[in-house]
């Protein structure tokens, strides 16, 4: 599947999803629908690009693809649930650890030392347990995101930033041709937007509902930029030299 075809598929999903949202949420403006549906549709190209690469895709890129697909499925499901049932924050409790787990597993392949690779993977169940603990602590679904947002941001940005810096320091080639660089920039942008959107929206809710909604639209645009960077990352040229360690039980990225 070429880049053009992937873009075509994304555009088709964008239009279809946008049309569905426009008919289901008549109170939302067209440009807002366009932004939100675009943010969801652009989660597909990284997954499609990895699938198109087939066996040439590294394990890290494959898991980035799964991460993007998890986001796409979760966002679509959330919108369907919110349209029919209303509250969908328990769904976030389930999907959040899955999404973060996929990303951490992907990033484990980009670590240069086996201990760090292990620590990324061991952190996945710990993250899931902590998320459940936070949910139980928060009690009310509305408070859950106020706590889980900073928690996820801290964990994920620490993992992403550490990988970005450690790989950049050891990189001998052109850093802007590295998948981990673009994916890290995109994911950091996504998680940063994720954590600030709720408190800002809540703060603006008292002043103006339209402004509060605008925050989500801005987040959608930022998400589009983030996933475009991730898509760029998974299409980077494959590295010719392995960055794996020499220990026999470690796996190369």
């Amino acid at each position, binding site marked *: 599947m070429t880049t053009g075809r992937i873009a075509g598929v994304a555009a088709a999903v964008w239009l279809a999803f946008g049309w569905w949202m426009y008919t289901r949420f008549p109170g939302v403006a067209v440009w807002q629908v366009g932004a939100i549906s675009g943010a969801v549709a652009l989660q597909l190209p990284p997954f499609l690009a990895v699938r198109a690469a087939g066996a040439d895709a590294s394990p890290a890129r494959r898991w980035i693809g799964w991460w993007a697909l998890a986001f796409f499925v979760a966002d679509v499901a959330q919108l369907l649930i919110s349209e029919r049932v209303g509250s969908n924050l328990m769904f976030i409790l389930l999907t959040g650890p899955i999404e973060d787990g996929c990303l951490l597993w992907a990033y484990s392949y980009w670590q240069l030392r086996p201990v760090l690779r292990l*620590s990324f993977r061991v952190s996945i169940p*710990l993250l899931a347990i902590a998320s459940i603990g936070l949910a139980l602590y928060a009690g009310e679904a509305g408070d859950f995101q106020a706590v889980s947002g900073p*928690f996820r941001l801290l964990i994920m940005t620490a993992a992403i930033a550490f990988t970005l810096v450690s790989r950049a320091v050891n990189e001998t080639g052109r850093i802007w041709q590295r998948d981990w660089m673009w994916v890290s920039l995109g994911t950091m942008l996504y998680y940063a937007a994720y954590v600030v959107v709720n408190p800002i929206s809540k703060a603006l809710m008292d002043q103006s509902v339209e402004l509060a909604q605008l925050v989500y639209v801005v987040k959608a645009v930022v998400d589009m930029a983030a996933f475009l960077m991730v898509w760029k990352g998974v299409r980077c040229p494959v590295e010719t030299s392995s960055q794996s360690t020499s220990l026999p039980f470690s796996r190369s990225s």
Partner: protein
Amino acid sequence: MSGGNLLTVYIAAVLAILVIVSALGAALVIYQRRFLALHRDYTRKLIAAHEEERAYVAREVHDDALQRVALIQHDIGDWIDARREMSPQDRVTTQAFREELADLGVMLRRVAHRLHPAIIDQGGLLPALKQLADDTSRITTVDVETRLPALAEKVLDRERSLIVFRIAQEAIRNVTKHSSATRAEIGVELSPAGLVMTISDNGRGFDSGDATKAAGLGMISMSERARLADGSFNVWSKPGEGTTIRVTVPVNS
């Protein structure tokens, strides 16, 4: 930011740090265990290959070289007997040949035994240690005594018996080569911890607290072999006070 929000962010931050530190700690422990297991497996295979090679050479020496020496001795004996009229000079020369060959046979037999003590397979560890002590006392200036229990059955399997015997061989070799000792003792006793072998000498000793002296290749070899047998290895020594090594190996259940 309100007090409640500050608390939630604080909790999220603490939880995130806990997750990161726990993941790193768990990864370090897992990595260390895997590394040790790999190292132990490698050492075990190396020692097994070493023993196999020694057994092969011992077999070749015993089955081939020794047999040829015996055959040559026999042929020379027949040749001498067939020549009734031999000058005294020739008789002395041929007798010297026979004695040289007999010495060669003894030396080859000793080498074969040292390479692979067949007595371990036939009698077990204790007879092998007794023979080691007797051979050392006969060949060197060190008088080696034994203090062995009267055991009705073998308490160690073949693999562990060979490991303990090799440790004793290495220890006695150190006594004869480095210690300037005149007396040594090989003691074996059964304890709740397992079979305990103690080898002590009255040599010049060394500072066992000095890491550079205590970590010679022989010491490391003995220590590794003891670990392979799931046992422990300890050494006590002081300059002028001799040396004692103790090996404890669990017995067959």
